[in-house]
């Protein structure tokens, strides 16, 4: 494989250095944690795809193909490592996901096609998550237990104990299906809402503890407000102490550390059937949303660039291969957008649809909402 950084062959140590390159590294390390090269490259590729999709999404919001963008550039490392470890499926034997609106990386890693994201961003009727009704990133996927994402901050933390309660009960009756957990995620600013404490309180009723994996991605800002001005300077995870909830802080920008932390937290929730609070320190590379311009913030560490450097330094990959992956990801995102923009928009006939599920005990709306009640 050609290498632009290859040393000239006449250096004294050239022979030795070529020798180490032939023995491919088997693991990528970060502190006490490590990850196989094979897994690291999978994570890296999914991070690249997520970044390509987010950057194309921001472009759509500026080009008129979409109106509003919000997402998670800067959270790719943590989100991809999470998505790859989810027990994916439908029903209480599998994990429930209570997400917020910065989680494209989780779902791309789980296998969601990019076009499922761009259809929502472009408000198409083909958007399976919302028929063009909701902001981008507001996913709803019953086959993967991804319950509908809402813009209302932190309400997902009030719901997670409910799915976890059903999962715990299901596992007690079905010992072979006793590892499903409820994963709930939000930002650090949202922890100011009472629902964050509701989740901890409802998950720790004595003898009735619940398998809730509480995740907080801490980018240190709520829209424009610096966390340090509105929250005690003690870590978010300290809030778990009075509930006796096990907790950990991890570097969410480091995939090796994040993968291991998620693995530890998940194993605890799955086996102990109790809650865990994991705080991940992450970057916010394009601000809050398109409403604040979505300009690139060059001051925060870029987890993608950092991991790329780490993999190249470890000789797990080289720059041409990186470029090829980036080109593939960009082409994939471009193709999704091109296809999306050919697809139909919702019409006035679609306004009422999906308000109600069909009901055998409703005299007015047996099938769905049809406008104000009428005379028969």
């Amino acid at each position, binding site marked *: 494989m050609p290498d632009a950084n290859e040393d000239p062959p006449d250096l004294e140590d050239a022979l030795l250095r070529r020798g180490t390159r032939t023995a491919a590294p088997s693991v990528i390390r970060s502190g006490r944690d490590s990850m196989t090269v094979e897994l690291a490259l999978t994570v890296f590729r999914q991070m690249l795809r997520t970044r390509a999709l987010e950057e194309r999404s921001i472009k759509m919001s500026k080009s008129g193909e979409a109106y509003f963008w919000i997402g998670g550039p800067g959270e790719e490392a943590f989100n991809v490592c999470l998505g790859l470890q989810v027990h994916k499926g439908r029903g209480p034997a599998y994990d429930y996901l209570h997400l917020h609106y910065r989680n494209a990386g989780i779902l791309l890693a789980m296998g969601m096609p990019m076009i499922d994201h761009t259809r929502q961003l472009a408000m198409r009727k083909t958007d399976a998550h919302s028929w063009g009704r909701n902001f981008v990133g507001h996913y709803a996927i019953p086959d993967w237990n991804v319950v*509908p994402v809402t813009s*209302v901050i932190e309400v997902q933390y009030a719901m*997670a104990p409910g799915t976890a309660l059903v999962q715990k009960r299901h596992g007690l009756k079905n010992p072979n299906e006793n590892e499903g957990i409820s994963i709930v995620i939000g930002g650090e600013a949202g922890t100011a809402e009472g629902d964050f404490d509701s989740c901890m*309180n409802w998950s720790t009723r004595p003898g009735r503890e619940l398998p809730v994996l509480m995740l907080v991605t801490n980018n240190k800002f709520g829209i424009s407000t610096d966390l340090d001005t509105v929250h005690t300077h003690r870590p978010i995870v300290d809030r778990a102490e009075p509930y006796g909830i096990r907790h950990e802080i991890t570097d969410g920008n480091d995939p090796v550390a994040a993968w291991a932390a998620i693995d530890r937290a998940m194993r605890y929730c799955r086996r102990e059937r109790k809650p865990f609070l994991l705080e991940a320190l992450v970057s916010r590379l394009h601000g809050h949303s398109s409403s604040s311009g979505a300009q690139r913030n060059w001051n925060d560490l870029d987890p993608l660039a950092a991991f790329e450097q780490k993999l190249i330094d470890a000789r797990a990959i080289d720059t041409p291969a990186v470029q090829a992956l980036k080109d593939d990801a960009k082409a994939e995102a471009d193709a999704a957008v091109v296809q999306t923009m050919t697809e139909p928009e919702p019409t006035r006939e679609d306004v009422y649809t999906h308000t109600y*599920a069909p009901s055998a*005990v*409703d*005299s007015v709306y047996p099938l769905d909402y049809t406008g104000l*009640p009428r005379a*028969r």
Partner: protein
Amino acid sequence: MASIAQAVRMALHYGETHLGVTDVFGEDVGPPLGGVFTATQGLKTAWNTPLDERGIMGTAMGIAYAGGRPVCEIQFCDYAFNVLDLFKVAGNQRWAGAGTFALPMVVMTPNGAGIRGSLYHSHSFESWASRLAGWKVVMPSNALDAYGLMLAAIKDPNPVLVLLPKALMRAKDTRLIPGEPADPEELSRMIDAPIGDRSNWEPQWPEVGDYTVNIGSAVLVREGTAGTVISYGRPLPLCAQAADELARDHGRTFDVIDLRSIFPYDWDMLSKSVLKTGRVLIVNEDTEVTNFGEHLLRRVIDEHFYDLVTRPRTLLGKHIPGIGMNQNYETNSVPQLGDVRAALWDLATEAA
């Protein structure tokens, strides 16, 4: 002959034994108390929650998302205001999620004044609730309807809010729920928990049967020609009584309609009655700005303006910050029997 509280209890028992109800929960809903109005005594799936309405609503949503059938209680509707956004989310999730998830959940909560409850045990919630698109909202005025509407709420795969008129919770019906023993004292011995230590008590449930009042179906409780009276919940018996008195004393008869469902409401029945009488009075105890009755008034005006022989009108609770503890506050701010009777008389006698 059951009370509304007993009827709700029997409906929930039927729900957990026949309709797949998995959880009945809320503050003081489980043993030993079984609900502050005793509506959940003896139920096998009833449990107590932290004092946290947001947790109650959120957990109900989670249980429903995961395939359970929850019935949760907000202890008094006065304490539902801090979960309005969760009501909104539960109501819009199906529409917002393009029908991907159903949310079969029931919330029940006591509603309105009449128990000397002061400011925070006297609110009415139906006008707020009528703005929660995606929800269905019902309010019985008697025990049999409470049973039938609760079964409908459980069977319906959408979020349903059951508002229970506080002041009528112990009011006995003259009719029997299918399977209910005819002797009310026998029913009480079977399903009312004893006073004092009840740790070894178990209810002896009667073999109650299926009886469903469809959502969106009103009922004509009095029939007449002098006017149409539309009400529900606590003031409904007052409307019926006032109509009986005016029929007896003055020969004026009224259509008295128990709406039973706030949304969807039975426009078909309202419309036909208005066409017949040309005179309309809407009665409820919620505050008058902005009141669900005003929406009905708007529809009457929009669709029956030229069918009316006199101005359509409302008799509603006064727009004040709360119900005061001294009884003089309540009697002068919430429609009373005398107010209803006078309003009916005016409705019937105003020159066309």
